């Protein structure tokens, strides 16, 4: 039981890039990736983006980013929000 919990604990302490568990999640290398990793990755692993692709329309990715900010309280700067949405639409959209 102890071991289980220790590993769980690490997931939200470490930045995604430094977490052993999330090492395999490598998003497409394109402009805006840093903003996605830095913002989105602080609350959830980036495989959420991969698995939810490539079906989202531009409007759906825009709505998802807005939901993260307005409903889930993600502290994303407006400039970053646009960068993130553009990256998602271009690399993980339909």
């Amino acid at each position, binding site marked *: 039981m102890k071991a289980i919990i220790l*590993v769980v604990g*690490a997931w939200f302490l470490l930045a995604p890039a430094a977490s052993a568990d999330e090492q395999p999640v490598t998003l497409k290398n394109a402009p805006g990736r840093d903003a996605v990793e830095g913002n989105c990755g602080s609350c959830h692993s980036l495989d959420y983006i991969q698995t*939810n692709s490539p079906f989202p329309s531009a409007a759906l990715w825009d709505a998802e980013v807005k939901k993260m900010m307005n409903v889930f309280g993600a502290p994303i700067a407006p400039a970053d929000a646009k960068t993130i949405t553009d990256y998602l639409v271009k690399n993980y959209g339909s």
Partner: protein
Amino acid sequence: MLDRRHFLHGAGAVAATAAAGLPRSGWAAERPKLSDELPAGTREAAVLDALPGKQPLIKLSYRPPNYETPLNYFSSVITPNDAFFVRYHLADIPEVDIRTWKLKVGGAGASTPLELALAELRRFEQVEVTAVCQCSGNRRGLFNPHVAGVQWGVGAMGNARWKGVRLKDVLAKAGVRKETVEVVLDGADGPVIDKTPDFVKSIPIWKALDDTVLIALEMNGQPLPSWNGFPARLVVPGWTGTYWMKHLTSIELAQKPYDGFWMKSAYRIPKGKFALVDRFLSQETEVNTPITEMVVNSLITGPAPGQRIAARQPVAVTGIAWDGGYGIQSVEVSADNGATWQPATLGDDPGRFSFRAFSARLNFAKPGAQTILAKATNRLGASQPRELIQNPAGYHHNLVARVAVTVA
């Protein structure tokens, strides 16, 4: 009550593992067999990965952890604890110390609020129920067109023998005022940042007082696995998993409808689209209503998808069927895409909330690509549709079960 010092400790442990270059089991290479109906991105990203204490399951997200049970485990009516699916909404999942863990039972509707330690909770009468826990969004990934969310295949569900105490016995001890409309449930897990709404759910008081609703402490004769709600979780037989609060810490008797995000906005279905009995009236709006009971459903566990079958020999078809607790009346199978159906034989009945096994033998007239269908009907006469009932969040996928095979 909740020890958060383990975070630092845990970080060191993981960093050490990474430095030593020790991959976790299932690292990148192991690919699960996935339906080609799932989004392409899901098929590329999902891997078989073992959480500590679990078998390799189909990993859809690491943090929060969302892992589904591979198809082969459903050939057994009871899902093993170490293969049971894992579903979290938010990534702060703390260690629960059972020596200091307490369950608070209070709220405006409680005349005698109380706190219970684990030993005190165990003193209530212990009962057991065999029941399916299925995520509302099980099979979301199979929706066409796709909808956003965790892209579950068929395995965001499991069936277990849950043992614990009746919620109504605990509520009685807290004194239920007659104005109580809902019971609000919270667990130890929470959001990473304060502004994210904590995962808090409510159920109507009439459901909370139902004999079958339990605060479970055991699963299949063992303490609840950490990933499935240790030390205590709510069990709401017949209703989807969203109400089965894990790591329970607080139960509140509320005199008005709970209006948090996870009730008011999430887990809602359009009104009038599904033939359901249980209604959650205090939460209904003009247009939608909280999801409640599971719809009747089935899954073919054999033959496996893509399996080659010898021609001119009867094929053994096996599977499971379940519903929202009315009980399975019959299961039919078809070898000709639904033109004709033949009855399957039902296995032992472990209770109306459980998976029910079925089996049949089918003969295929022609070689080549063939499809086996299965369709369950419950004791209310509800069955599975051939056409998907679309809804924005991708809930209640219960299309007639289908498996493609090759007869050669």
